[in-house]
């Protein structure tokens, strides 16, 4: 059974449109869109909120292709390879065709990843139901090692900020003995429950960006020539996809698989899909000059991520990237614990998530495909007019977290500054957020495991499933070390 009505349809459409706007504006992301619009979900139950959040997610990822094709600036990291062929096509007077090819490939990627999500998540969750506190602790530890993998070329910094996030999350009352810790006595009332997730999220992803844009003077990345105006040398036709099915299927599968692996990220997925496309291409020399297959590979891969990234989130409770970290925050705010029991305890919400993802992909296609000439103008929205409105929404969001607690508004500014300073010191913000979200659970399961074993640490090596998770942890660390070295080598070249 699913929950769907007119309201849910309108909300999903709204989410997709707002997401596309955020995705299309360079410097703004799907993560930021979800963080800013989270407070709106307070007015709805979880099923309605799911439509808004997934609409924002799909719209935000998809919108990135607009500036990538028209200005060769990826609107989101996952559309980094879209401009390789999309922009040359636009320069040849095939802008509309390139955009429509990208949008269609995005729809295919999104739908394929949805099928994988529907099939994979229950299997993983069934396995995870057998987990005791020990395995739960180890799974979160595994998620923490993902932090290392997330921090391309700055692994130590990533782990440091991840544990800093854990440390900050421990502020407030410890539930077992109801004792306040790590909070100055003058704030013992205000910070009894520690910092609230919502203002931390909005601060890290919206306010820090505001400070960075203000520092740059709110300069606009304008389209220099309106390349969509005038005569288009070649028009879009679905025949453009002739001979592209295998390429599209392979790229969407790569995107989905990379999405399932936590921490790999969208840019890596589209780069891998693009390089595979080049390997299997009959005309590899044409890639990078405006080849349809390159554009198809990039866009089907990055939308393949959407469903893939939700697999570990909904089956294990592990956020794989910044966007899913914000999504897990949204579930927590709605009182839903994502993890192994999520599907069995919330079958309606699970079915609704799948349906909402389908609807969001279809809406994305309809909203972007036909009026793309007008949608493309989004990238010319002046930032100096957009940010004051964003400030207003952020303040309302923080203020409403606990119905008017001013500490939450100050939390917003504090974590905006934290995010801004992190960007200056080249410290990753996503890892900090993942640590902050998982910190309390990490501690809870660690203490519960110890209580069950009389304080014996060997309990973490005593169960077969636990040992399997240890293998995953070491594999993840090995990948992180390899990736870190690779990035260092590339940087020194």
């Amino acid at each position, binding site marked *: 059974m699913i929950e769907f009505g007119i309201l849910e349809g309108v909300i999903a459409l709204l989410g997709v449109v707002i997401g596309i706007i955020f995705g299309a504006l360079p410097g703004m992301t799907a993560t930021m869109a979800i963080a800013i619009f989270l407070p709106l979900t307070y007015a709805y139950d979880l099923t309605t909120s799911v439509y808004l959040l997934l609409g924002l997610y799909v719209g935000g990822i998809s919108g990135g292709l607009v500036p990538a094709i028209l200005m060769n600036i990826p609107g989101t990291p996952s559309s980094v390879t879209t401009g390789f062929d999309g922009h040359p096509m636009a320069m040849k007077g095939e802008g509309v065709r390139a955009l429509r090819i990208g949008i269609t490939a995005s729809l295919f990627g999104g739908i394929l990843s949805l099928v994988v999500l529907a099939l994979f998540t229950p299997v993983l969750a069934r396995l995870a139901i057998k987990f005791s506190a020990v395995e739960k602790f180890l799974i979160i530890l595994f998620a923490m090692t993902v932090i290392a993998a997330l921090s391309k070329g700055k692994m130590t910094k990533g782990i440091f900020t991840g544990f*800093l996030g854990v440390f900050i999350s421990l502020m407030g009352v410890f539930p077992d003995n109801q004792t306040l810790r790590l909070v100055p006595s003058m704030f013992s009332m205000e910070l009894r429950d520690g910092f609230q997730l919502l203002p931390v999220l909005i601060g890290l992803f919206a306010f820090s960006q505001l400070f960075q844009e*203000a520092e740059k003077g709110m300069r606009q990345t304008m389209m220099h020539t309106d390349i969509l105006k005038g005569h288009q040398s070649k028009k879009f036709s679905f025949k453009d996809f002739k001979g592209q099915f295998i390429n599209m299927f392979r790229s969407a599968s790569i995107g989905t698989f990379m999405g399932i692996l936590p921490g790999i990220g969208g840019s890596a997925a589209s780069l891998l899909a693009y390089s595979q496309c080049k390997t299997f291409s009959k005309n590899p020399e044409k890639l990078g000059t405006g080849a349809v297959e390159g554009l198809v590979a990039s866009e089907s891969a990055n939308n393949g991520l959407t469903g893939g990234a939700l697999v570990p989130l909904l089956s294990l409770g592990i956020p794989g990237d910044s966007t899913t970290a914000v999504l897990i925050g949204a579930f927590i705010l709605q009182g839903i614990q994502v993890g192994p029991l999520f599907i069995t305890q919330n079958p309606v919400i699970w079915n609704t998530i799948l349906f909402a993802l389908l609807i969001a992909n279809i809406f994305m296609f309809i909203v972007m495909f036909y009026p793309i000439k007008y949608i493309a103008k989004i990238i010319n929205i002046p930032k*100096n007019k957009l940010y004051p409105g964003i400030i*207003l929404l952020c303040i309302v969001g923080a203020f409403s977290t606990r119905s008017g607690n*001013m500490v939450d*508004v*100050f939390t917003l500014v504090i974590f905006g500054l934290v995010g801004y300073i992190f960007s200056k010191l080249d410290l990753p913000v996503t890892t900090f957020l993942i640590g902050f979200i998982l910190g309390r659970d990490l501690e809870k399961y660690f*203490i519960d495991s110890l209580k069950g074993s009389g*304080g014996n640490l060997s309990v973490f090596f005593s169960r077969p499933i636990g040992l399997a998770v240890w293998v995953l942890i070491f594999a993840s660390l090995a990948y992180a070390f390899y990736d870190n070295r690779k990035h260092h080598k590339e940087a020194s070249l």
Partner: protein
Amino acid sequence: MSDLFKIKIVYSQSHTIGPKIIFGILVIFSLILLIQAIMKAKKENRPLLDFKHKHFFIENYDRVKLFGTGILLILYIMTMNLLGFIPAGILFISLFNILYKGSREVKSILISIGIAISETMLVWFIFGYMFGITLP
């Protein structure tokens, strides 16, 4: 030896176990980061704290907009409960618009105020009136 693999849990002190472990990890990683920075500085033959070549802010950064944002934000937050959501919103969103637009022309200022009024009223209508979300 087996004591090394045991952590004694005393109920009244159990709230300190997690923070102590995490703090220990943070200290270790701070030291690793410091050693990495020292080694990098040595390799590049420059002092560890290179204030001459490294700047916190980007080149030619917009002081007025950056610090103006900070000051306006603090003033906005301090006064919003006093003034109420709509007056404070209109006042400060106008000021943010004027600050970011950077124009002193009367027409531009009037447009900024118009935008602030419509945005504030729209947010009030959606969040405060339609959805009953608590506003200042």
